[in-house]
C-alpha cells in the first residue's frame, strides 16, 4: 500500500519556471479578475440593494470579463509555459488559457446581451454575480489538476447555473428547467464524486499526475474493476457537464426554460468547461497507454456517435427554435466528443484534440450568438416557434444576417470558423479510421443543414405574418450579436491565430 503516497514536495513546487514576485498567481490572473468582478458586484449591491441600475451592473461585468479576455489572450499568445500552483492542485497551461479565453469571452457577450434582457427585473446584481461566479468556476475547471479541485470547481460552476436557470422564478418553464437541471446535476455530481472515490481507492491519489504515475507503474489486478467503474463514473460526471447522452436529459429543458442569455452561457461556456475537464482528466490522469483494461476511447466513441445522432435527429423536428438549438447543442457535443473518441493509435492525436478545441472555440461564438438572437426574439416577444420568425428579415435584416451566419456556420458552411473546425474533426475521424464516427458526422451534418436552414427559411424566405412588428433595437443585444457574428466570420480566414495555440496546447497533454 505504499504506492505513490508522497504528497507533492515543496521542491516540486519551487522549481517552477515562472515563480515571479507575485508568487506565480499572475498565472491565474483571469480567475482572480473574475473573482474581483464578482466582489465588486457584491459591493455595489450591498451599497444600493434596491437599485435597478442595470447598466452599471452589466457594465462592470462586461468590463471585468473583457479585462479577463485581454489578459487571457495576451497570456495565450505570448505562450506562457505550464505553471503549477498550490502544490500542483492547479495548472495553468495553453489548454487552460485557451478555454479560459472561451469562458471569458462568452461571459462578456452574455453580460452585454443581458443588459436589455434582464431589463428591470428584480435581483439583477445576483444575476450578474452568479454569472461571473460560474465563469470563475469554469476558469478553475480549466486549470484544475487534481480530482479534488475538479470536483469543487465543477460544483462552483454548477450551483450558480442551477440558480440562473431558475432565475425567472415566476415563469413555470424557468423553474421546471431549474429543477430538472438541478436534480440531474446533483445525481450526476454524486456519480462523479463516487467515481472519484473509486479512483482514489484504486490509486490512492487525486492528483492527475500522480494517478497517471501510479497507473503506469501498474496497479493490483483486483482493483482494475474498481478503477474501471470509477473512470466510467467520472466520465459520466463529465458527460453531464458536456450534455452528452445519457447525461443530457437536463439540457433540452434547461436551455429552453432558462433565460436565453443563460442558455447561451450554459450551452457554450459550461459545455466547454466539461470538455476541458474531460481532456485533462482523461489525458493526464488516465493516459491511454498507461491505463490497462479501461478502454475509455471506445466509451467516448460510443458516446460521440449516440450523442450526435440523437441530438441532431431530435432537433430535426422541433417546433420551437430555442429547443432546436438546445438539441443541436447536444449534437455539437457529440461532434466535439470526436476529439476524444478519435484518439486511436492511427490518429495524429494532438491534431485531433486541437480540432475539438477549435470547434469548441468557434462554437462558443456561433452558438452564443444564435441563442442571443433567440434572446432578442424573446425580448421582442414575437414568439418561439419557427413560424413566428417568418419574414423577420424584412424587419431586422442585420440581426437576421448575423443569425444566418451563426446557423450556416453551425451547419458547417463557410460563413464562419464552424466550417473549418467541423471539417477538421471529420479529418480527425477519418485519420483515426473511426469510419463510423465519420459516417455519423456526415449524416448528422446533412440533417443539421436541414433544420438550421428551417430558421433561415423562416426569416428570409417565408412571408411575414400580418401582425409582425418589433419595437426597438436593443443596443446591448445587437452589439453582442453583431460582435459574435463578426468574430465567427473572421474565424474563417483568421483561424490561424487560434489553431496554432490550440495545437501546441493539445500536444502539451501528450
Amino acid at each position, binding site marked *: 500500500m505504499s504506492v505513490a503516497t508522497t504528497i507533492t514536495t515543496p521542491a516540486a513546487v519551487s522549481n517552477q519556471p515562472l515563480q515571479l514576485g507575485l508568487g506565480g498567481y499572475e498565472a491565474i490572473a483571469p480567475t482572480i479578475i473574475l473573482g474581483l468582478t464578482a466582489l465588486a458586484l457584491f459591493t455595489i449591491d450591498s451599497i444600493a440593494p434596491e437599485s435597478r441600475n442595470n447598466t452599471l451592473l452589466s457594465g462592470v461585468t462586461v468590463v471585468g470579463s473583457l479585462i479577463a479576455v485581454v489578459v487571457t489572450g495576451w497570456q495565450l499568445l505570448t505562450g506562457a509555459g505550464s505553471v503549477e500552483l498550490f502544490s500542483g492542485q492547479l495548472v495553468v497551461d495553453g489548454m487552460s488559457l485557451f478555454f479560459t479565453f472561451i469562458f471569458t469571452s462568452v461571459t462578456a457577450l452574455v453580460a452585454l446581451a443581458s443588459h436589455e434582457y434582464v431589463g428591470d427585473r428584480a435581483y439583477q446584481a445576483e444575476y450578474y454575480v452568479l454569472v461571473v461566479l460560474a465563469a470563475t468556476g469554469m476558469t478553475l475547471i480549466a486549470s484544475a489538476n487534481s480530482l479534488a479541485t475538479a470536483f469543487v470547481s465543477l460544483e462552483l460552476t454548477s450551483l450558480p447555473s442551477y440558480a440562473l436557470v431558475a432565475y425567472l422564478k415566476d415563469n413555470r418553464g424557468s423553474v421546471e428547467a431549474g429543477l430538472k437541471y438541478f436534480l440531474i446535476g446533483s445525481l450526476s455530481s454524486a456519480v462523479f464524486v463516487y467515481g472519484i472515490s473509486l479512483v482514489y481507492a484504486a490509486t490512492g491519489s487525486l492528483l492527475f499526475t500522480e494517478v497517471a504515475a501510479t497507473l503506469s507503474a501498474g496497479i493490483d489486478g483486483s482493483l482494475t474493476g474498481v478503477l474501471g467503474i470509477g473512470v466510467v463514473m467520472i466520465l459520466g460526471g463529465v458527460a453531464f457537464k458536456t450534455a452528452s447522452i445519457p447525461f443530457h436529459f437536463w439540457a433540452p429543458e434547461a436551455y429552453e426554460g432558462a433565460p436565453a442569455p443563460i442558455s447561451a452561457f450554459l450551452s457554450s461556456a459550461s459545455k466547454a468547461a466539461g470538455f476541458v475537464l474531460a481532456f485533462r482528466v482523461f489525458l493526464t490522469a488516465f493516459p491511454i497507454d498507461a491505463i490497462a483494461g479501461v478502454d475509455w476511447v471506445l466509451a467516448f466513441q460510443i458516446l460521440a456517435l449516440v450523442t450526435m445522432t440523437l441530438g441532431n435527429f431530435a432537433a430535426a423536428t422541433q417546433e420551437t427554435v430555442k429547443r432546436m438549438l438546445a438539441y443541436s447543442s447536444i449534437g455539437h457535443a457529440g461532434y466535439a466528443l470526436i476529439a476524444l473518441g478519435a484518439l486511436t493509435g*492511427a490518429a*495524429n492525436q*494532438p*491534431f*485531433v484534440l*486541437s*480540432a475539438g478545441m477549435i470547434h469548441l472555440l468557434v462554437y462558443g461564438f456561433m452558438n452564443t450568438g444564435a441563442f442571443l438572437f433567440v434572446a432578442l426574439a424573446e425580448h421582442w416577444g414575437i414568439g418561439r416557434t419557427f413560424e413566428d420568425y417568418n419574414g423577420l428579415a424584412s424587419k431586422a435584416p442585420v440581426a437576421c444576417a448575423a443569425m444566418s451566419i451563426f446557423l*450556416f456556420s453551425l451547419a458547417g*458552411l*463557410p*460563413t464562419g470558423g464552424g*466550417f*473549418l473546425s467541423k*471539417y*477538421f474533426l*471529420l*479529418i480527425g475521424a*477519418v*485519420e483515426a*479510421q473511426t469510419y463510423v464516427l*465519420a459516417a455519423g*458526422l*456526415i449524416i448528422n*451534418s*446533412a440533417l443539421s*443543414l*436541414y433544420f438550421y*436552414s428551417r430558421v*433561415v*427559411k423562416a426569416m*428570409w*424566405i417565408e412571408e411575414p405574418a400580418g401582425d409582425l412588428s418589433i419595437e426597438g433595437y436593443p443596443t446591448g443585444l445587437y452589439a453582442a450579436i453583431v460582435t459574435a457574428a463578426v468574430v465567427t466570420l473572421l474565424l*474563417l*480566414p483568421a*483561424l*490561424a491565430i487560434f*489553431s*496554432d495555440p490550440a*495545437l501546441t496546447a493539445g500536444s502539451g497533454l501528450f
Partner: protein
Amino acid sequence: MMIELLLGVCLVGGLAVFLLPDRYSARLSFGISLLPILASSYMYATFDGVGNALLEGSTLAFETRVNWLSVGPYELFYHVGLDGVSMPLIVLTTILTTLAILSAWTPIDERKSQFYGLMLLMEASLIGVFAALDFFVWFVFWEAVLIPMYFLIGVWGGPRRKYAAIKFFVYTNVASLVMFVGFFLLVFGLGDSVQSLGLPAIAGALSAPGAVGSVGGLSPNAVKTAAFFLMFAGFAVKVPVVPVHTWLPDAHVEAPTPVSVILAGVLLKMGTYALLRFNFTLLPEIAQQYALVLVAFAIVSVIYGALLALAQQDLKRIVAYSSVSSMGYVILGLVAFTLYGLGGATFQMISHGLISGLLFLCVGVVYNTTHTRMVGDMSGLAERMPITAGAIVAGSFAYMGLPLMSGFVAEFLVFSGSFAADFAYAPVFTAVAMFGIVIVAGYYLFAMQRTLFGEFSVSTDYEITRAAVHDVVPLVVLIVLIIALGSAPEIVFGMIEDAVRPMTELTTTQQADAGPAGMLGLGVSLLGGVLL
C-alpha cells in the same frame, strides 16, 4: 493579383448592392458585373500559363500563394492560379453572370438589392472555385456557392421553390462531405509524403510510384479505388450523373431564369471541372482501370437523360434534362483520356454553358410574356415574337450539335476522343452514346414545332408583345459567342489543349480489364442498343 481583384470586385460590389436600396441595384449590379468581364478578358488576352496546373512543368498564370494556417501536419495555403482549363471557365462565369443579371431586370421585381447582391457573391465564389489550387481554399469556395444559390432559388423561385431549394442544399452538401472523406482517404494514403494540401503537391506526390500506402485494413489499391469512387460520388451529384440527378430538374424548374442560367451554365461545370482536376488528374490509373464502369454512367446519363427530356412538357424541364444528357458527354470525354476526349470535355463545358444559358434565357423570355412554360399551352409564337423564336431555333440547333456552332465542335471532339480511347469496346460505347444526338434532335424539334409554329394561340390571357431590349441582348450575345466558338474553336481550344495534353501522358498502357466492369459496360451498351 488579378484573381484577387476579380474576387474583390464581386464581393465588395455584391455587398454594396446588397446594402443600397432597390431602385439602384439592377443597373448598378449590371455595371459592376461588367468589371469582372473586363478583368477576365484582359487576363485571357495576357494569359501566359503553360501546361496543366496540377502537373509537372506547368507555369500558372496570375498565381498567388500565401500561408494560411496549419491543419495538424498539413500547411494550408491561400493558393490560386489559372491554367488553360480554368481560364476559359472563369471568362464564361463572368460573361454569364452579366447576362443573367441583365435577364433579371424583367422578372425580378421584389427585394432587388438582395437578389443582385447574391448574384455577385455567387460570381465571386464560382470564380474562386475555378481559381483555387489549395484543397481547403477550393473547398471553402465550393461550399460557399451553395449559400447564395439556396437563397436565389428559395426566395425568388417558383411555387415549389422551398422544396427545391432545400433539396438542392442538402443533396449537394452531403455530396461534398462524401467527396471530402474520399479526398482525405487519399491524402492519408500518401502519409508523410505530402506536407500541404495544395493540389499540385498532392498530384506530384501521387505521381511517384507506390506513393499511396495502405490505410487501416485497406490495401494501397483499395485506398485509391475507394478514394476515387467516394470523390466521384461526390462530384457526380453536382454534374449531375444519373442516378443522382434528381435535384436538378426541381432546382431548374423552380429557380428564376437568371439563376437557372448560372445553375446550368456554370454550377454544373463545377462538378465536371472537379472531376477533371481530382479524379482524372490525381488518380488516372483508377480512372482507366474502371473506365467501363464510368463509361456506363456516362452513357446512361446521355441516353436516359435525353429520354427523360423527351417525356417532359415543361420547356424548362426539357432543357434541364437535356443538360443531364449533355453533361454525360463530358464524362464520356473525360473517361476516354485522350487529348480530344479531355479537351472536348472541357470545350463541352464552355459550349454547354453558353448553349444551355441561351436556351434558359429564351424560355425565360417566353415565360415573361406568356406566363406559362407548358408546351401544350402555346403555339405559333414565332408570329408574335420573331426574334425570340429565332433565338430558340438557334439555341435548339446548337444543342443538336449543328456545325459552325460550338456544340458540334465539342461533341465531335468528345466522340473522336472516346472512339479512339483504349478501353475495351470503345467504339461501341461511343456509338451508343452518340445516339443521344438523334434523341436530342427529336425533343427539340417536337418542342419547337408545338410552341413556335402553327396557328398562334396562348392559353394564358396576357398581351403577347415583342421582348424588351435588355431581354434580347443576352440572347444575341450568346448566339454570337456560340457561333464564334463553333467556327473558330481555336480561340479557346489552343489554351485547353495545352492544359490537357499533359494529362494524356498520365495514361498507363494497361488495357481496362473487361472483367465484371466490362460486362456491366456491355450490358449498358446493349441497353443502348435496344433503345437504338
